[in-house]
């Protein structure tokens, strides 16, 4: 739909009537016909005259806001949601018509209405001042090119229509035009939703860049179970485990359950919900794969049991000193024997954290006195590192728009993967190795396999930087978090987005998928963590407690505990299954029972900052921000902070 030449009111009525007829809203249709016949004549002229003056937007916005404010409580929450897109587009219209002063006045007058929910965008729009900026600015174009999604109940929508047609000569026409051009209102059956929390926006609301496929995307089936193991490999692993069990059979001290049984439990065949093996081609298994699988089963049987009914997590903190603010990222190897850190000065440093420092084999690369190794090859700050599941390879990504593969054994660079056109923010190895994904400033995420120097898939759809990326445990999906405040789940095979998780009000800074494959968590730069059900694409709950950027999230092996860490120098553990009552008063009360420190915070009397009751514990460091948290295979939590 073109922005300059909106449909005439007659067209509008026809569109609305068609829509109503299609949906079968006969009563509304009759009402609309009745009203349209009364006031269809003189509108056109009035509309012209009103739109000429820049004050019209201020006038109409005020009318709309006053009406929304005076509406019944029941409908108010829903009606409030329409104010923001109207605000944005009124402002952008004023700017593109070159009414600079009027636009600024309009902005200053009404921006406070939206700072709560849309602070990030409102601030970004502030600096626009010329028509050319509107045409160029990313945020503005997001709003211009995509329809703003709103979900209304039928009664609320009727009320709105009624109001607009009543005031059609009084500026309502401007709003109708804006709605028609830039807003997509979906009618949902049932009672109007009462939004429990002012700080959280509705999942279906806002710009998701998916106005057409959107409905389908949410319904596309996803297979979230584990990928079945190669039959041949499964047999060998079972044999090995049986042998292992036999060895321990005569040992009276051995109380742990049979490994073979554990293994069978872990790999229960679940045909309908698991992706088939040929869906994602993987290289044939090797001897080491069997060994590591046996190790994994052993680790699983020896894991600590975590959860509200078992014990709270134990956290081992590695604090780095003398970094001069130059460290950008840090990552543990899957076997917890190494730490890889990326630095502002374009190099990566590899530490061995085993008891004996000699475990890093000698090589020709630059070695420091303390046994750490510097990996040199990037030409820009390194923003992300990730180890392969077999601990033999390391991937890094950098501002120089490339990702690089390193051999941990020889400490040398093997491959440079150049496919992005901007800085690469994050990189993640797949759960079976071989594949990896990168997230970049160029608004795409890309899928690679280690043996190809070009990307196999380009995941395009995010409307801003892709900031973080992680693989689904079955390797069939990739999850990305973006500065456009959404997360997306991408199908690796088909290469397009199958889920959009919308609800953050700030850029997403960290994502994690639970090992069970059904739940995911995303964290934003304001310190909120959202927990989502991947299958339905719905938000389960919001976890509140952090004050600032969250840099890292990690689920425990049983997916019962989530641990987060960030710039507010705390590591927090969350109970995944406990529901949050959204009444802020009760939440702060029960919160104080869970942790002794939130008693203090609840006295701040600030709803937005009260700690939610599902926080199990908050662990403070000595003012050192936490860069990484990750659970080992035995459920010990390792963390990295920087002093």
């Amino acid at each position, binding site marked *: 739909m073109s922005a300059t030449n909106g449909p005439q009111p007659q067209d509008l009525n026809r569109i609305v009537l068609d829509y109503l007829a299609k949906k079968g809203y006969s009563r509304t249709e009759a009402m609309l016909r009745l009203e349209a016949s009364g006031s269809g004549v003189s509108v056109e002229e009035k509309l012209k005259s009103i739109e000429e003056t820049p004050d019209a937007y201020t006038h109409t916005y005020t009318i709309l806001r006053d009406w929304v404010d005076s509406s019944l409580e029941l409908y108010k929450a829903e009606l409030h949601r329409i104010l923001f897109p109207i605000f944005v587009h009124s402002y952008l219209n004023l700017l593109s018509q070159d009414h*600079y002063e009027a636009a600024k006045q309009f902005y200053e007058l009404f921006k406070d209405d939206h700072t709560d929910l849309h602070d990030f965008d409102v601030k*970004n729009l502030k*600096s626009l001042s*010329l028509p050319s*900026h509107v045409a160029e*600015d990313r945020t503005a174009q997001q709003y211009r090119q995509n329809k703003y999604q709103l979900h209304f109940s039928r009664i609320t929508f009727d009320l709105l229509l009624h109001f607009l047609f009543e005031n059609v000569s009084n500026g309502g026409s401007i709003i109708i035009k804006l709605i028609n051009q830039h807003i997509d209102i979906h009618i949902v059956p049932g009672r109007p939703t009462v939004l429990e929390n002012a700080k959280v926006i509705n999942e279906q609301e806002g710009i998701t860049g998916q106005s057409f496929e959107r409905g389908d995307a949410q319904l596309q089936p996803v297979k979230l179970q584990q990928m079945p193991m190669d039959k041949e490999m499964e047999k060998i692993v079972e044999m090995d485990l049986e042998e292992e069990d036999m060895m321990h059979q005569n040992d009276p001290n051995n109380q742990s359950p049979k490994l073979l049984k554990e293994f069978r439990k872990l790999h229960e065949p679940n045909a309908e919900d698991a992706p088939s093996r040929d869906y994602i081609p993987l290289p044939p298994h090797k001897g080491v794969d069997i060994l590591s699988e046996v190790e994994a089963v052993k680790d699983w049987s020896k894991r600590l049991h975590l959860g509200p009914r078992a*014990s*709270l*997590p*134990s*956290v*081992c*903190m*590695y*604090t*780095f*000193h*003398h*970094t*001069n*603010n130059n*460290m*950008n*990222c840090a990552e543990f190897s899957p076997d917890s024997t190494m730490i890889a850190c990326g630095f*502002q000065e374009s190099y990566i*440093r590899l530490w061995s*954290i085993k008891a004996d420092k000699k475990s890093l084999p000698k090589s020709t690369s630059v070695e420091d*006195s*303390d046994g*750490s190794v510097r990996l040199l090859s990037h030409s*820009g*700050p390194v*923003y992300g590192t990730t180890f392969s599941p077999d601990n033999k390879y390391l991937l890094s990504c950098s501002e120089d728009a490339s990702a690089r593969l390193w051999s941990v054994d020889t400490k040398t660079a093997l491959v440079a993967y150049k496919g992005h056109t*901007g*800085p690469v923010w994050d990189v993640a190895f797949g759960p079976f190795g071989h594949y990896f994904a990168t997230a970049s*400033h160029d608004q795409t995420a890309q899928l690679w396999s280690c043996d190809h120097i070009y990307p196999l898939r380009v995941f395009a759809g995010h409307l801003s*930087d892709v*900031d973080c990326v992680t693989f689904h445990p079955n390797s069939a999906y990739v999850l990305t978090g973006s*500065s456009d405040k959404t997360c997306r789940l991408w199908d690796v095979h088909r290469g397009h987005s199958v889920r959009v998780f919308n609800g953050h009000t700030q850029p997403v*800074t960290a994502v994690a998928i639970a090992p069970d494959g059904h739940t995911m968590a995303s964290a934003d*730069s304001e310190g909120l963590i959202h927990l989502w059900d991947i299958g339905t694409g719905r938000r389960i709950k919001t976890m509140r407690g952090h*004050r*600032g*950027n969250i*840099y890292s999230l990690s689920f425990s092996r049983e997916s019962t505990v989530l641990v987060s860490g960030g*710039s*507010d*120098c*705390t*590591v927090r553990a969350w109970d995944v299954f406990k529901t949050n009552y959204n009444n802020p008063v009760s939440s702060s009360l029960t919160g104080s029972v869970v942790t*002794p420190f939130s008693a*203090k*915070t609840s006295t701040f009397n600030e709803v937005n900052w009260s700690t939610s009751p599902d926080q199990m*514990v908050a*662990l*403070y*460091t*000595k*003012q050192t921000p936490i860069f990484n948290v990750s659970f080992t295979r035995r459920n010990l939590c390792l963390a990295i902070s*920087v002093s």
Partner: protein
Amino acid sequence: MSLTVWNIESIKDVAEMLGIGNLADEPAAAIAMDLEYRIHQVVQEATKFMVHSKRTVLTSADISSALRTLNVEPLYGFNNSRPLEFHEAAVGAGQNSLYYLDDEEVDFEKIINAPLPKVPRNISYSAHWLAIEGVQPAIPQNPTPSDHTVGEWASKGTSGVMPGASTAAKEARNGVTSMDNVEIKPLVRHVLSKELQLYFERITSALLDETNVELRDAALSSLRDDPGLHQLLPYFIMFLSDSVTRNLGNLVVLTTLMHMAWALLDNPNLFVEPYVQQLMPSILTCLVAKRLGSDPNNHEHYALRDLAAFLLGIVCDRFGNVYYTLKPRVTRTALKAFLDNTKPYSTHYGAIKGLKTMGKEAIRVLVVPNIKVYEVLVRKTLEKGNEEEIYEANKCMDALYDALLLLRDDQLPNQRTLPPNASGLLEKNVGSLMAEKIMKENDTSLLLGLLE
């Protein structure tokens, strides 16, 4: 056009600098508006680099990276390692002040001949338990609960974006390392006010001064009653244990120091509990040390031992519940000293006094069965020893008797009579020397208590 941050005048100034005179108002206003937008764009882009570097402070390197991604030549010559310092200059009355970067002139010769700056410290890591099963162990690497509640309040003040202290510290360190004299400050710094330092010096010198009794008493009473000394407490405890080891030959000072410990324990405003572990060795030293005072014939050290035993009682009473290993440990130390016959009588005396403070049960179980054995030692001394030794042995016997008095059965003094062979039984229990002593006193309740 007052709505733009950049006013037209500054645009015109820059234009003039570039050799464009007479820039009209309209283009200048347009440029001002565009400028604001561009600056915002650069900052927005730079913020992304800051976030991905996991920092909360924007650096000039972020701006350079942002400019590069926007296809603009970055600005060169802005050193990242040192925080930029802006200076203010007054332009004239009624006008805004001008801010500029200080660009100092550096002599080329000087730079070439200057010694190389010190190499910054190598990056290292340390590991510790942040939490064990959800509980933070109280180790130096973890903050105390009071630290972070303060932090939370502080971070509230800065609109909850981030705790300001850490960045400030980080920045400070960042600045320091690039300079010549690298100074590594200890992680925990305790700031004492000038007044407190002065007070500490006065008190300690008054306590160690043997000549001025009045001043010493004043110092002790100040320690006993004054509020607000809590910051000094660790220093006082340190001073105490230091001075005790250094002044073992000086009875007067030792006695004063014990009085000082008493005063600190007595002060209702002080929270001594965390320092009990450091306090105990000093008290025990004054209790069971071989020799206290320089003159072996001076018997005043018994009074000091009594005082130390009294303090021991106070400490064990008050903190025995918190440090549940405290009492057993003290008892074990005292008993060991008591049973070691290579130790002199002075040590035995202290040990007996110490055991006495541990209460009835300790005496009954630990002392009574050992009296008979101990008698052998005493008898030997009484037969062969010199006058001094005999005096000391008697002193110990008195102390033992004193301790036994605790066992007096006060409940039923009249309703029970002594068994006929009381003295015989007694001798069997505690040995003939002690039995003799007890019979002499003819204390029925003690007899009953002992025979039970």
